[in-house]
C-alpha cells in the first residue's frame, strides 16, 4: 500500500514521476535527453543537490544504462528514463541486467516509430517492453500507467518489485501521459523501505563471500541452470498481475486496452452504454505479467472482444492467446503518434454490434 500526501497538486506526468522517484528514495539517476521525457532528467537535476542523490547526464543512452548497471550492482536504488529510440539503445544493457538479476526502474515515455519516428504518443513499444526487447530469454516487469496519478504511484510499485524480484522494471508510458497535467496526490517520502542487498559489490569485507555481478555463464550446463532460475522467477512474478475492469459483468462486447488507450475506451464505453450497448473494459495494468487468466474467464460471458491500441496491433496477440479462438477478437489501432478518438472506438463498437447481430437493450 502506498501512503499519500493529503494535498493534491497539479503536475505534469513526467514531473510527478520524477518527484515520486525522489520520494521513493532514489539514490542515482543516469539518463540522456530525449523528447518527450526530458522533464524527468531536468526535474531531477534541479532537485539533486538539494535532496542528496546522484544525477548524471550520460553521453548516450548506451552509457546511461550501463551506469545504471554499475550503480545497481553496487546496491543503489537507481533509475533511468528515455523514449522509444533511446530505449532501443538500452536493450543490450537491459538484457545484461536481466541476466545479472539487477533491480532498476526504466521509464519509457514512448513515442511514434519506427526509426526516429515522431515525438507524439504511441504504444508501439509493447512488444519490445513485454517480450524481452534485447537478446535472450528474459522479461522485464512492465507497468502501464493511464494517469498522472499512476505515473507517480507506479514508481513506488516499480522499485518494490525490482528489489523483490531482482529484475529491471519498466514503466511504459507515452508522450501524452508524460506531458499532460492532472491532479495528483504524491506518495509520501520515505514510505518505501530499502531491502538489504548482500549480493552488491560494495567491497569484499572480512568474512563475506566476494560479490560478483555477471551475465557470463560460459558452460552451457550453467547457462541453462541460470535460465531455468530466471524462468522460475518469471513464474513467481505472475502473482503480481494487476488489472482494472469496468462493467465487465454484463458486457456483450469487451474492450481491452492499456494506458492512454484505456482512457479513451472508458469514454467510448460511456457513449456506447448511453446507446444501450453493453460494453465492458479490461485494462491490463501489468503488461508483463499479462492478465491472461482474468481475460480468459471474462470472455466466457461476452460475445466479442475489441482491442484498442496506439499501434498496428501488438497486445492483441496476447489477447488472442488468452481468448484462444473462443470469441472473435477485433482490433482498432492508430499509429505514428495519432490518438484514436472515443467516437472512432464507438464507431468500431457499432460496426461489431451490427456485424455480429448483438442485441441492444
Amino acid at each position: 500500500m502506498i501512503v499519500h500526501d493529503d494535498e493534491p497538486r497539479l503536475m505534469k506526468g513526467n514531473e510527478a514521476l520524477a518527484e515520486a522517484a525522489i520520494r521513493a528514495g532514489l539514490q542515482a539517476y543516469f539518463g540522456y535527453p530525449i523528447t518527450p521525457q526530458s522533464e524527468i532528467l531536468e526535474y531531477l537535476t534541479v532537485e539533486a543537490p538539494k535532496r542528496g542523490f546522484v544525477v548524471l547526464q550520460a553521453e548516450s543512452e548506451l552509457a546511461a544504462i550501463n551506469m545504471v548497471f554499475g550503480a545497481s550492482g553496487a546496491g543503489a536504488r537507481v533509475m533511468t528514463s528515455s523514449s522509444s529510440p533511446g530505449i532501443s539503445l538500452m536493450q543490450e544493457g537491459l538484457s545484461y541486467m536481466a541476466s545479472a538479476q539487477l533491480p532498476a526502474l526504466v521509464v519509457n515515455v514512448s513515442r511514434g516509430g519506427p526509426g526516429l519516428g515522431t515525438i507524439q504518443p504511441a504504444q508501439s513499444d509493447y512488444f519490445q517492453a513485454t517480450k524481452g526487447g534485447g537478446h535472450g530469454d528474459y522479461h522485464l516487469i512492465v507497468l502501464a500507467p493511464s494517469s498522472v496519478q499512476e505515473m507517480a504511484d507506479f514508481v513506488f510499485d516499480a522499485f518494490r518489485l525490482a528489489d523483490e524480484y531482482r529484475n529491471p522494471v519498466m514503466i511504459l508510458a507515452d508522450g501524452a501521459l508524460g506531458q499532460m497535467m492532472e491532479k495528483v496526490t504524491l506518495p509520501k517520502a520515505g514510505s518505501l523501505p530499502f531491502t538489504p542487498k548482500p549480493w552488491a559489490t560494495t567491497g569484499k569485507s572480512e568474512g563475506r563471500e566476494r560479490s560478483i555481478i555477471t551475465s557470463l555463464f560460459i558452460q552451457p550446463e550453467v547457462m541453462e541452470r541460470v535460465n531455468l532460475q530466471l524462468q522460475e522467477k518469471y513464474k513467481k512474478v505472475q502473482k503480481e498481475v494487476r488489472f482494472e475492469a469496468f462493467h465487465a459483468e454484463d458486457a456483450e462486447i469487451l474492450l481491452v486496452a492499456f494506458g492512454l488507450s484505456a482512457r479513451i475506451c472508458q469514454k467510448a464505453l460511456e457513449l456506447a452504454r448511453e446507446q444501450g450497448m453493453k460494453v465492458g473494459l479490461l485494462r491490463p495494468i501489468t503488461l508483463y505479467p499479462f492478465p491472461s487468466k482474468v481475460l480468459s474467464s471474462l470472455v466466457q460471458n461476452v460475445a466479442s472482444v475489441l482491442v484498442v491500441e496506439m499501434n498496428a496491433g501488438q497486445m492483441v496477440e496476447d489477447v488472442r492467446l488468452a481468448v484462444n479462438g473462443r470469441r472473435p477478437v477485433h482490433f482498432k489501432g492508430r499509429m505514428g503518434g495519432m490518438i484514436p478518438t472515443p467516437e472512432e472506438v464507438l464507431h468500431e463498437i457499432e460496426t461489431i454490434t451490427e456485424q455480429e447481430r448483438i442485441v441492444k437493450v
Partner: protein
Amino acid sequence: MDTIPAITDMELVYCRPSTLTDTPFHYCPGCSHGVVHKILMEVVAEMGIQSQTVGVAPVGCSVFAYNYMNVDMQEAAHGRASAVATGIKRVLPDKFVFSYQGDGDLAAIGTGETIHTVNRGENILVLFINNGIYGMTGGQMAPTSLLGMVTSTTPYGREQSVMGYPLRITDLVAQLPGAYYVTRQAVHTATTVRKTKKAIRNALEYQKLKRGTCFIEVVSNCPSGWKMTPIEANNWMEKNMFAYYPLGDLKVPKENHT
C-alpha cells in the same frame, strides 16, 4: 598422515597475494594479462584496500578477471566498462574503483565511454591492455593494430587506405583536462613490471585525492594472436609496438605527492 613441509627454516619472500584467488590463470603462455592481474592485486594487498576495492571486468580475454582477482567485481558489456565503473563510483565515491580493458573494448566499441569517462574526470583507474589485436575472438584487427600488421581480418596486412591508422587513444586521453595521471608502460621485463606496479600504486593513491581519472596503458603482447613464441612476441613488441606506442608518462600530476 601429517604433511611434511617441503621447505623448513627458510624465510618466505614471495607468495601469491591474498587478493588473488587460487584459480589458475587461463591465459596463453607468455601473455601479459597474468602479470598485470598479479601486480594490480599486489598493490591492492599492499595498500590494504581489498575490502574497499570494486573492479570492472571487460569483454575480451580478461572477461574472467573476476575469477582471479579476489575483490568484488562486475562484468560489463563490451566497451561499457568505464560507464559501469562510473555508476559504481558515483554511488560509492569512497571506494577504489578500477576498470580493466583491452584495446578493442576501450578504443573501438567503447571509445565514446572512454573519452567521456575521462573527460568527466571520474575518479577511477582505467587499466588499458593494448596488444594490438582481438585476442579472445581469435586474432582480428584491433583499432591499435599497427600498419602492415597481419591479423585474421587484415590477412594482407593492415592498410591505411582501407582501415585507417592505429589509434593512439592514450595520447588523446592525456589531452583531456579530466585526466589526472596518464602513463604508458609494459610488463615484459622485470624492470618494466616494477615500473608498471609503481604506476598502479600511484594511480590508486591518487584516487584518494578525487582529482580525476588515472589512465595506465600497458603495451602488451599476444603470442597466440600474433602467431609467435612468447620470446618472439616480446622482441616484436619492443621493435614495433614501442616505436608507435612509446613508453613513459604522458601526464603527471603537477602537485608533489611525496
